């Protein structure tokens, strides 16, 4: 992305967009874990994912944002919706949505949160209160070079993983193999 540095043409209201998008993400996260209906959860998650793509754009990671939209919102979530529709049970909506260990779960989460707070409070100075300037005009090419250069092996492993996942999913879901 071309970084425009002319005066008066700064990206508008960065702070506002950050709080708006992160609010959207957290709100959707809350909906995901509280909605009775799985489809509503999935929809909330989709909105969260889209908002997160917005955050990636703000972080000058357009390629990751694009991949996020295509793969997450357009692919994985469609798969989720697909499955929810296949297994949608009227019954499951009337049942208790939370399991018996919800108290333990909450406590664990609070403990985790406390840990995060402690870590961030302690290591606050490690994270500069600024975002680094854009590294280069277009980092999509850079990512491509990295993927096919330095991370070649990891890339191949990932493709192998996907292949295994495809086979596994087919074996699991197909009635007659």
């Amino acid at each position, binding site marked *: 992305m071309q970084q425009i540095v002319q005066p008066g043409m700064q990206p508008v209201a960065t702070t506002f967009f950050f709080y708006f998008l992160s609010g959207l993400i957290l709100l959707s996260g809350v909906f995901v874990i509280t909605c009775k209906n799985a489809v509503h959860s999935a929809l909330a998650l989709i909105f969260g994912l889209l908002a997160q793509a917005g955050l990636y754009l703000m972080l000058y990671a357009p390629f990751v944002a694009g991949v996020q939209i295509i793969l997450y919102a357009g692919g994985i979530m469609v798969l989720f919706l697909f499955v929810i529709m296949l297994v949608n049970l009227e019954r499951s909506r009337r049942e208790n949505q939370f399991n018996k260990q919800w108290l333990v779960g909450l406590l664990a989460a609070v403990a985790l949160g406390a840990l995060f707070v402690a870590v961030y409070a302690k290591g606050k100075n490690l994270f500069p209160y600024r975002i680094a300037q854009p590294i280069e005009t277009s980092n999509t090419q850079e990512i491509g070079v990295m993927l096919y250069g330095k991370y070649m092996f990891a890339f191949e492993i990932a493709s192998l993983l996907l292949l295994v996942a495809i086979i596994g999913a087919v074996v*699991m*879901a*197909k*009635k*007659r193999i």
Partner: protein
Amino acid sequence: MGAGQPGDRERPIIMTDRIMVDPKTTDAKTSDAKTADSTRFLSHLELGEPDKTFLDTNELVINMGPQHPATHGVLRVILKLDGEQVLGTECVIGYLHRGVEKIAENRTYTMFNPYVDRMDYVAAVSNGLGYCEAVEKLLNIEAPPRAKYIRVILTELNRLASHQLWLGTHALDIGAMTPLFYTFRDREEILKIFEKYCGARLTTHAFRIGGCQYETYEGFEQDVIKFLDFAPPKIDEYEELLTTNRIWLERTKNVGVISKADAIALGVTGPVLRASGVKWDLRKAQPYAAYSDFDFEIPIGANGDTYDRYTVRMEEMRQSLRIIRQAVGRIPEGPIMAKVPKVMKPPVGEIYHSIEAPKGELGYFIVSDGSTQPYRIRVRPPSFVNLQALDIMVRGALVADVIAVIGTLDIVLGEVDR
């Protein structure tokens, strides 16, 4: 089947609807473990206990119709699906039941004649022909040769019209919109001839017992000859759109296959039977009207799939044109009406007469008790019998194939329900 079972008269009913009953299903009603209302109609769709294995989907029951754009009227098909695959079907009919056969018992033979037009309303002329010939057989009279020729011409024109309507709707079901309009354009020419001849386009009531009511109008032959020149390029046009179309081939080849043996066992007739490779056409097998005078081929198929039924019907259109061309050149002179008593009182007895309607064997079984009204009339409608084959043809196929097969069976609900 709820269609027109007459009440308990003294005489036993001789013919019953030949319903193909799956041996498994006959006792399905007694073992009714089914309580849910949705499964009420599915008695014979239960294919035994589904094997509950580790990887098993639950089945989906879907109502196709009676208000569905592709069931050709008010046919209701209950589909039991596994995903998109059809496990079984059950046809629920009777939504268009008007009690035609019962009405016949309260009408004189002449009065009942127009009613038969309303059964297969796209091939009304054939219906009339079958009825008139059956009553003539009962009365032991014969229509004069001129009347027979006029009958052949009109019936074959009607066969063409019926096949054109079939082609249009069948193609529309499979998703090709355009042939519908082409066929309707050309069918219009036939209907114009009908209108000029007898004043009606659809329910023509063209024939009377003993012959024809109307003499041919001035220029009838020219009109027919004009149509004979008009139609063949149009039929080529339909074929051009469909016959070699890849998608059409994929949608119709090996879809809705019915074997020779199955077709015969189910009593299927008409193009559906011929497409399975059985060379059976009543026009040749037991010629009626003047069909023995003409030279024509019986097209047959090899595989009994939807594509074969399509090609058979397309060829039948051409053969019909051939028959008409032979007939129109040599319509004999003479009367068009045999000597028929004013009050028809056929002798006591029963008669079965069948003709080759566009859709198959159209039979009339008439029982006379010697009065002016038939004691009982039973119609053997081709659509009704052919519809039985639906289940065999679509098992294991996909939902889209059900549509294609219903289209290829060429059913008319007016005839199925009567």
